[in-house]
């Protein structure tokens, strides 16, 4: 039984964007990890970034600064 937590989940147009996001977040000290994109978020079988919900503003700023375009961004329990 896994306990779900309020998370900010970002999906991408390409796997390379997901990898770049991991690099950017690590460099910025943002908590989170790559996960398989949740099925309820997308029919695509890509990779998503999942971080604590409270990191959302910093995460959005980091992605903007790095020029990474998110396909979708949602807060949900994960």
């Amino acid at each position, binding site marked *: 039984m*896994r*306990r779900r937590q309020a998370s900010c989940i970002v999906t991408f147009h*390409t796997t390379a964007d997901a990898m770049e996001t991991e690099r950017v977040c690590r460099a910025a000290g943002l908590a989170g990890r790559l996960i398989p994109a949740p099925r309820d978020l997308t*029919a695509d079988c890509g990779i998503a970034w999942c971080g604590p919900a409270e990191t959302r503003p910093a995460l959005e700023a980091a992605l903007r600064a790095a020029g990474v375009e998110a396909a*979708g961004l949602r807060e949900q329990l994960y």
Partner: protein
Amino acid sequence: MAKKTKQTPEKTSWLGQNWLLLLTGFLVGAAAIVLNLLGNPGNMGFCIACFERDIAGALGLHSAAPVQYFRPEIVGIVLGSLLMALARKEFRGKGGSAPALRFGLGALVMIGALVFLGCPLRMVIRIGGGDLNAVVGLLGFIAGILMGLVFLKKGFNLGRAYKQSPLEGLAFPGALLLAFLLCVTGLCGLFRSSAAGPGSLRAPWYAAILAGLLVGALAQRSRFCMVGGVRDAVMFREFGLISAFGMVILTVLLGNVILKKFTGFSFAGQPVAHSDGLWNFLGMSVVGWGSVLLGGCPLRQLVLAGEGNSDSAVTVLGMIFGAALSHNFKLASSGDGSTPNGHIAVIGALAILLLVSLVLSFAKGKEGKK
């Protein structure tokens, strides 16, 4: 792009998360057993590579008489995915992500699959049927996926897909449906059809299309994908997808035992298979590596094509082209073993995969990040 928060239970069990995948695995295995009973070749209730190879033959793209038949299962999978995507409002016309490269990679994947004699789905069906050659293929498949993942982590990128018109997304499923209707209504006598060999072994068309529809719809809903299963297990320690393939093996194994068709695990004497271990391994390495770069196994490409992804439709066309190359130039194996031309083609395919992986991982320009 932000969406409203969706409320879900705070706790979730593994089974609660993955029941649909397990159900899909069970029904895919059951469909393979039933189609085999109704006439499909041994351990080939479902095989995306073999069926696309048969379609290539039916269209006259190769002249190998034993493997020509317009397989309704392929049409069913694409249409099942399309119907499920439409029902769930997930149909999207999109494309434009390196179509020429995808066509070529699709051809390479097919060449590797026909050296092994099966796609990843048939590989697990063969394991369930007691074919140990498929276990060798599985090891090669995993090795190929691991190679591909190395480059994915280095930033391998075929480029993003863009929104297209719904008509673009419907073109491939529509063409398949039209060809299928021409076949079953007898209006088209142009398609070739095997009188002997694997292409002549077939379930009735209505059973085949129904099984395809079921598998396509479930695979769309669950995102059933062998490559994704290994990727998730290796990268994220998530085992839901790969468990679905364990369920296929278990279902096929139990089905064969119940029907008294299971004669134990062995390398020799397996239907539509050979025992050249090295080439089984390397052939499936090509399939695994190429499929990772393409973002999904051959079954997944059909499902994505049904969802409106024209890049996947191009990939499927590349696979059909690869099947034609395989039989026209004697690259494909047979029950007697692999061929010298097949060996050269597999080595060449691995070299091309390495080149493409290196170029698109390390030589990216300013557009590389997009």
